[in-house]
């Protein structure tokens, strides 16, 4: 049966519950700017009522803990967008460095040198000038100097691209250790969450885990799979397992053909690659990582696709021009009075498999009298071979299908389109990330206004409970004083 003391104990319970709720509110306010923190709300539960002699009496309220407000689906969606935005952002900034090598020539007479398109034109035009006066030494010198400018700019661009590729390789390999520390931490959190709250939201532990996952998705594209007991498995976008429950599988770097490849271990404790690049029982997942998103995906796309495409085009350009000019020069007559070397080349001979032709392009001819402006078997004043060499600039000498100028024009247009496309993608994805982030924050972010009003409510509730306790205490006094002449106060 309900008594005064049971009423008092209900009030005590209420005071405890209010105190705990105030604690939750204070925690929210303290963590308002902590990254990854989701706001918590106190959960109130009516205590189980007691039934004695056919009469049911309530037993008050308990506060059973704080519930974090999170939407797992929204978080996963946000992570997916973040890995796409991170990949396109990384790719974009690297591509902008690449395209800075090919700034469009503004065409004014005072425009700076360094544009390969105008170098090509000047080079072939120097042969046109030579047609008018084939034995003129200064015209011959200008042929050689425009050849040197052309080869310097092409080889300079190729060398810059190679250097950039190397630095991207280093950046990418630095990501491995960050990934490993995050997956280790996630695995540990998995274990803790599984043991402490397998069936309910794990509060701050889950906040930490979500934060780690969010960081990881910015680095490497991942898929998340929820497993039993509030556990989580994480794989890369292409399916390589990184975390399964309390186990994490380390990533490691290995050099293959001069570039860094990424290996994932197949057992939970071993490393995936040995230092010489062979897989120590691990799997090479580099190809999957390239298309998978995250910073690493962005870097690998630029390193393995975008830069090699430009390098290949430059190599083809260098190969085509060098080979055609060298062949033509060897088919004519020089004005040299000494011995003519065999072969009598203007440019260095490019490698037969074309790769590396751009970086190695240079002018080997030092004596301008070795330029064969005259035709084969003609006297020195003839200009027919100079005409031939000048016309090479308008013939399909690159890949047997394009003129040098058209080929270079296609090269810059393609590169520009790639960068422009990456820019568009990045803008769209960043906007999407912002929108999802806003939605997520609206749900999980701490609103100081809400906390202030909750705190006000708790304050009133506490005051009411303590007031009720005071009144009950007075009633107890009266009860104690029943039938007594002296008063206890």
């Amino acid at each position, binding site marked *: 049966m309900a008594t005064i003391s049971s009423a008092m104990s209900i009030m005590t319970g209420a005071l405890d519950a209010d105190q705990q709720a105030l604690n939750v509110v204070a925690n929210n306010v303290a963590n308002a700017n902590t990254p990854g923190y989701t706001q918590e709300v106190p959960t109130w539960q009516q205590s189980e009522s007691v039934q004695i002699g056919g009469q049911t009496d309530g037993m008050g309220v308990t506060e059973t803990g704080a519930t974090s407000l999170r939407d797992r689906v929204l978080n996963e969606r946000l992570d997916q967008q973040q890995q796409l935005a991170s990949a396109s952002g990384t790719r974009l900034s690297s591509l*902008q460095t690449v*395209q*800075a090598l*090919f*700034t*469009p*020539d*503004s*065409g004014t007479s005072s425009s700076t040198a360094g544009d390969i*398109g*105008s170098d*090509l*034109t*000047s080079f*072939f*035009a*120097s042969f*046109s*000038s030579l*047609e*008018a*006066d084939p*034995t*003129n030494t200064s015209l011959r010198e200008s042929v050689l100097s425009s050849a040197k400018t052309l080869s310097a700019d092409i080889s300079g661009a190729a060398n810059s691209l190679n250097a950039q590729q190397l630095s991207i390789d280093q950046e990418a390999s630095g990501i491995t250790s960050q990934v490993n520390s995050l997956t280790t931490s996630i695995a540990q959190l998995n274990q803790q969450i599984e043991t402490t709250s397998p069936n309910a939201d794990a509060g701050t532990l889950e906040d930490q885990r979500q934060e780690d996952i969010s960081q990881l998705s910015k680095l490497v594209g991942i898929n998340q799979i929820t497993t039993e007991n509030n556990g989580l498995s994480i794989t890369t976008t292409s399916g390589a397992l990184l975390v399964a429950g309390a186990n994490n599988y380390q990533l490691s770097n290995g050099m293959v053909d001069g570039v860094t490849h990424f290996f994932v271990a197949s057992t939970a404790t071993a490393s995936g690659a040995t230092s010489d690049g062979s897989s120590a029982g691990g799997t090479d997942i580099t190809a999957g990582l390239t298309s998978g998103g995250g910073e690493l995906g962005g870097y690998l796309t630029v390193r393995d696709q975008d830069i090699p495409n430009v390098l290949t085009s430059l190599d083809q350009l260098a190969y085509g021009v060098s080979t055609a000019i060298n062949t033509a020069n060897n088919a004519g007559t020089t004005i040299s009075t000494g011995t003519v070397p065999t072969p009598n080349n203007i440019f260095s001979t490019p490698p037969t498999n074309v790769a590396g032709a751009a970086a190695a392009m240079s002018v080997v001819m030092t004596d301008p009298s070795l330029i064969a402006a*005259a035709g084969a078997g*003609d*006297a*020195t*004043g*003839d*200009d*027919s071979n100079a*005409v031939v060499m*000048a*016309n090479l600039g308008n013939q399909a000498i690159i890949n047997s299908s394009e003129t040098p*100028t058209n080929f*270079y*024009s296609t090269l*810059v*247009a*393609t*590169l*520009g*389109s790639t*960068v*422009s496309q990456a820019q568009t993608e990045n803008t769209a994805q960043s906007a999407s990330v*912002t929108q999802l982030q*806003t*939605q997520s*924050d*609206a749900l999980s*972010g*701490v*609103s*100081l*206004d809400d*906390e*202030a009003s909750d*705190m*006000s409510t708790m304050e009133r509730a506490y005051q009411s409970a303590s007031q009720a306790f005071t009144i009950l205490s007075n009633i107890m006094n009266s009860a104690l004083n029943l039938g007594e002449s002296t008063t206890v106060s």
Partner: protein
Amino acid sequence: MRVDPYYVANLANSLDQTQSASQQLTSELSSGVRVNSLSDDPVAAGQNVVLLNQIQQDDSFTQSSSLVSGQLQVADSALGSVVTQLTSAISLATSANNGTMNSSDVKSIANQISGILDEVQTLGNSVYQGQYIFSGAQTSQTPFSTSTATTPAVTSYNGDSDVNYLETPTGQNIQLNVPGNQIFLGSGSNSVFGALNSLVADYSSGTVDTAKAVSDTEALGTALNYVSQQRVTIDNSITQLTAATDSITSEQTQLTTAQTNLMQADVGQVSTSLSLSETQQTALEDVIAQLNSTSNSLFSKLQP
């Protein structure tokens, strides 16, 4: 529906975007170029390469054509002088053939014609910028020399028959020279030196074999016409060169206009966009400042 409590941070992101837009527009305005990097307009960047190539080719042709036209003018004036000399040689020979001259007069005519032959040989050995222009491709070899070992003397040619061409950007070939042997040592009665040497031999003894002298004089007349015809080739080249230079120059002007339109920034449009962007940026900054200055939560209103 709850509101995102961090919306001020998103406003800061928008501020970044407006700032970068302003920067882009400012750099366009300061450089005057619309396409500062390939991604600004990839198609225009590709087109620009092709246009500049053509413009620069045209420019280089204009420069070398002025070099070449000097050479052609020299050749033309040399041949003009040759025609004058040959005309006076013909009138000398005609006067010797009419039978009214005595032996010493005839010998003096032989000397004069010999002098004309030397003059024509000197003209045939004309030089332009250190090179023989009537030598074919053997531009360092003196083309004509006369040997008096035989009677009549023989003028021989040391050059070759090579012809040089200048190719215009439109693919037209302009002939730059006519070989000396073609002009002065044509076959049979077209040979200038042959006719002159024969006439000298005819008159040097003092007695005139009239039939032979008349036929040699006719041969010299034929040779003179032949030289005039050869001169036409040079004149044609000069005409072609002038026409080609004119059309290439006007093509260059048109292409330059096209390239400028493609690449240059429209200053009016860029200035307008820039001022709009700056206005937007100022407005955004004010909004952020305003939001930050007002008390931003209920806590400041609660009385302790």
